[in-house]
């Protein structure tokens, strides 16, 4: 299951329960993020256990995107599903802001490589 545009790719892999986000995600608001939010919810429903979100190649994510992912994390907290987020130390917004997702749900594990 993949959403792909010239600016970004969001791809969910059922085999390893991983959603990979890459490129530039600077969409206008909640409505524009809804397809990505829905993809994440569906990927989370595939298997028991942890869902991994690989954001290492996500160069930009605007605050509307951070809000959309935050809402997804809050949904995961409601159902008690653990989430692992993988980021890159070389992408400034990730080294600065990924930790915020952990503030919303203690079962978010952040790895910055």
């Amino acid at each position, binding site marked *: 299951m993949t959403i792909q545009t010239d*600016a970004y790719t969001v791809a969910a892999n059922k085999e390893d329960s991983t959603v990979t986000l890459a490129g*530039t995600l*600077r*969409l*206008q*608001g*909640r409505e524009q993020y809804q397809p990505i939010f829905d993809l994440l919810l569906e990927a989370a429903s595939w298997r028991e256990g942890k869902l991994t979100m690989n954001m290492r190649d996500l*160069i*930009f994510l*605007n*605050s*509307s995107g*951070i*809000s959309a992912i*935050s*809402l997804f994390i*809050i949904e995961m907290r409601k159902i008690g599903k653990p989430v692992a987020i993988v980021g890159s130390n*070389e*992408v*400034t*917004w990730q080294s*600065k*802001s990924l930790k*915020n997702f952990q*503030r*919303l749900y203690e079962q978010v594990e952040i790895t910055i490589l």
Partner: protein
Amino acid sequence: MQASGKILHIGDNIDFHNDIDNLFSVTFLPLDFFDSWERGSLLSNFVADYYGHNFPGPEARNLISTVVNELIENAVKFSRNNSMPVIITIKKRKEEMLIQADNCLPKHRQDAFVAVCREISEKDLDELYVKRMHENLKDPNSSGIGLILIKKDYCAGLSFSFYTDDRHGTHVAVTAKLDFDDLRKQQ
């Protein structure tokens, strides 16, 4: 924009006028962005690339582009009217970058926006972020997340000036200051 009447300042004291090395300014209409939202990203990346000579490296580029983009998006979304100008002004002073977005505010949102600015300037930002995210569940237009992140995660100075001009009514000028000397010390 020529101010008339009282000016209300909230937030950090940021000198936006003295000892400036260079500056440039872009004026556009929110309508331009609603036609093509990607313009915000293009403009933000241009600013980051332009100042890449002074502040080199992918980390600085990502930081500058992110902050400029948030201020642009905030100004466009909270403009009074799609046909009233938004002015983005970028200034460099030694190791500092000053980024200002000026837009007209709709009358019915002025008090709410002043309250958001006061919260960002006075409250614990980690707590405010969590609170705002939970409010967002009910109200997707709950504002200020981008501004909270600029101040909280990027340690940027942030100031808000509310003023009135005779032609367009009440404006807010949001100014962010990135001090690369301070940022390097934190690394």
